[in-house]
């Protein structure tokens, strides 16, 4: 069947199997920053933004996102032009193995888009669908705080935090 979506700003028409989950569809497009850690909707490493909302792409049928705007970790930035949240995770030491990191960053993006200055309790709540086995979370919370400041500074400078999508 056909699926029409915008992925990281680009309109796509895809041929998908009716039972395919969004995570597999994205990974087959080469967007492998979306990880599959459990395929049960528990670990959050497959998280992507669907119309701005963080969702586990491992359980979400691709057919259900017809017409949606999908943002994956690749849509936020790349090594040459990283998103401030991505920079913040590196600065804070919040990246160890890095397998959960894309999902964590997607959840952080969804949070900070809606609440630029969340309390620690809100950060905990917003990330609670993402498991990390390496860090003990302390440095991930630091990263969200650093990202908050980076984003506030960028918007204070009148700079857009939306990154242009590379062709």
């Amino acid at each position, binding site marked *: 069947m056909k699926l029409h979506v915008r992925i990281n700003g680009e309109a796509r028409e895809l041929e998908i199997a009716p039972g395919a989950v969004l995570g597999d569809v994205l990974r087959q497009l080469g967007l492998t920053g979306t990880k599959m*850690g459990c*395929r049960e909707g528990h670990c959050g490493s497959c998280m992507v933004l669907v119309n701005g909302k963080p969702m586990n792409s491992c359980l979400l049928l691709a057919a259900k996102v017809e017409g949606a705007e999908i943002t*994956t970790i690749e849509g936020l930035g790349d090594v040459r032009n990283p998103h401030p949240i991505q920079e913040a995770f590196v600065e804070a*030491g919040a*990246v160890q193995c890095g*397998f*959960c990191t894309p999902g964590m960053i997607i959840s952080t993006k969804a949070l900070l888009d809606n609440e630029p200055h969340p309390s620690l309790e809100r950060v905990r709540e917003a990330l609670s669908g993402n*498991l990390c086995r*390496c860090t003990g979370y302390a440095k991930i919370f630091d990263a969200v705080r650093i990202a908050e400041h980076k984003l506030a500074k960028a918007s204070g400078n009148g700079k857009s935090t939306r990154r242009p999508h590379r062709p």
Partner: protein
Amino acid sequence: MTKTAGTKKTSARPEPNAARETRVVGKPVPKVDGLSLATGRAKFTADEIPPHCLVGMLLLSPHAHAKIKSIDTSEAEKLPGVRAILHHGNVPRIAHTTAGQGFPEPSPWDTFMFDNKVRYVGDRVAAVAAETRDIALQALKLIRVEYEPLPAVFDFEEALKPGAPIIHDEPDITSFLPFDPKRNLAAWAKADVGDIEKGLAEADVVVEGEFETHYYAHAPIEPHVTLTYLDPDGRLVIRTSTQVPFHCRRIVAQTLGIPVRQIRVIKPRLGGGFGGKQEILLEDVCAMLTLRTGRPVLMELNRAQEFTSSRTRHPMRMWAKMGVKKNGEVTAIDFRGILNTGAYGSHGLTVLTNVGSKCLGLLRCPNVRFDGKTVYTNLPVGGAYRGYGATQGMMALGQLIDEAARAIGMDPVEFCLRNHIRAGETHPIFRALGEGREGVDMTIASCGLAECIRLGAERFGWKQRRGKGASMPGPIKRGAGMVILMQGSSIPEIDMAAAIVKLNDDGSVNLYSGATDLGTGADTILAQIVAETLHIPVSDVILTVADTDNSPFDTGAYASSTTYLSGEAARRAAVDLLENMRQVAAEALDVSPEKLDVGEKCFYVHGNPRKTISYEALARRALYSRNQQQLVGHASAISHVSPPPFAAHFCEVEVDTETGVVRVVKYVAAVDCGVPINPKLAEGQTEGAVLNSIGAALMEEYLFNDDGRMLNPTFNYYKLFTPGETPLVETILVPTHEPTGPYGAKSVSEISTNGPLPAIANAIYDAVGVRLRKAPYTPERVLEALEAKRKAEHS
């Protein structure tokens, strides 16, 4: 400074590792792979799948113990898209161990790719390679297996009784170590130091107890995953989530009966291992499927299989006894234990010996006895797991220390300060318990434990918190507990690491190393060490690592060895290169080499900083103009000692006496890891290790039914801490300088795994006066213990 130039021979010798000012070592340099990971660009095993790749899947045993009477694959083979099916009837029968250890592995060779018998629920029965996941799943359902169920044994002690079912009765298994499979004994180890009876007799007080640790999982977020394919020359390439690329290559060659030269193992980015990926679990089967089909094959454990069919923490039942005098002197420690290795003996001996060597040497005590056995049962298989025996042993010893101090009315902090091993001291247990060989005598060269205890107690507020929360009004009580710890850094006289450093046109270098970064930051640490040694920025170090074709040998990422040993190899290789560069610089500047000092990416003549040559200029000279050569440095490192890092952990808990729920409200870990090469990464290792074990202490546990089937192989019922409820850990790094380590470093990754089980138990005791001798400390167990205490008080 490297002022010892002279001839090439002497200059290749590593410079002495004296403490000195550093530029990049000791700094929180960002992880070299941080941005590629954070942007989702870094490639893990499953992220680069070649075209026409088949999907490999395992058929697993539904029985805890059974003979396979027959396997009929004819229906499955007829299914379009099925390309190969493997089972015991069509693969070579070669005994080996899945434990990725040095050769010869100190684990019994008791495993076959497939066997005609299954020994636990989740054991391998067959494998399928098919065009798609769906076809592979269908094919698994079409394989008809006739089992003859056998009596099974699940309890440590039952397994040792005469008449117990024999789990390994096959004649073709071997071990060069103590091994008696007819009695379900996978290994045993004993050590006797001093005179234990005399020591116990001298004691004013003897405390003792039975303790038990449980089955729990590594639970890396990336499950075990392997991709195999044939390169254009027909060589087998294994791209895999492994901590041990070189052991993987050797063991797959053995298991498949093909030469090592036919195999290349590549470790891409790795999504966490914690010891679980020090194991050859999928690689042999996946490789066999590729050899049979000529096609690329991807195999990945699903989350349930990751729980049941990878590896676990070895559970242990322990009986420990400690004699102390009223003045706090420890006169005897008697430690007996049975380690449950499950159906296969992977790491069964060495985890056991580490229970003794990493715990019993922690205290000054002349009379120590260790008596350990490792038994087979029909349950999931134990393996290497961060902490490696010290976690189990400290669960018991850490509680006994608290009990002993209480028994003589001494603060445990004072007790630990009085009794811990110090720099300049040794302990006979180090020699008595080795890892498949005799142990190694070792004098502690660096020990910051006293400082860890003092600083940790101060930051934690030990005096204010201990003994104060039991009288809180209401059902919730607070308590504080502490524990001291040690681990090792590499396996002495066994582990080896090598490195090569090559100079490029622009003065940058390539580092070739077999070290395996499993998310710990090892690549960053190695880059820092090379950058420091050569006086170049970290960004000038380009890494080629963990690829058996392109890296020199390294035993792998285990035994807390990477920073200490692979780091030392990298440092020596960089020193070797620097001395070779010095010769070229001397030639170019027309001075003798010993007249040259090293500056930022340059050499200059001592006392004449304007007479200088940049690394770029000397590289170009060597590559293009005079006395042409590729400048390169190489070195190997082995260690003759295993310098322990030390730690003191402090923990405060809240115990709800109505529900039994225990909550960690404060946790401080003070760690002496020598010089932390990268403090941010060292903190991260500590925080992650502590949280892993707080989870193990409070909620993570395999639940089995009466048939040995795990009931909760999903994150839904096997809970890891989420960001929502996680306690936060405070880390204090207490630097010392370890003279045998690169820039004074020791290990840091494992030690803090060992703190939470005893520290939390001690804190629970402080809060409510009950001792939890069986982990995890679930609400049920806490309530049970409180109930038993109430009954005892009323009778």
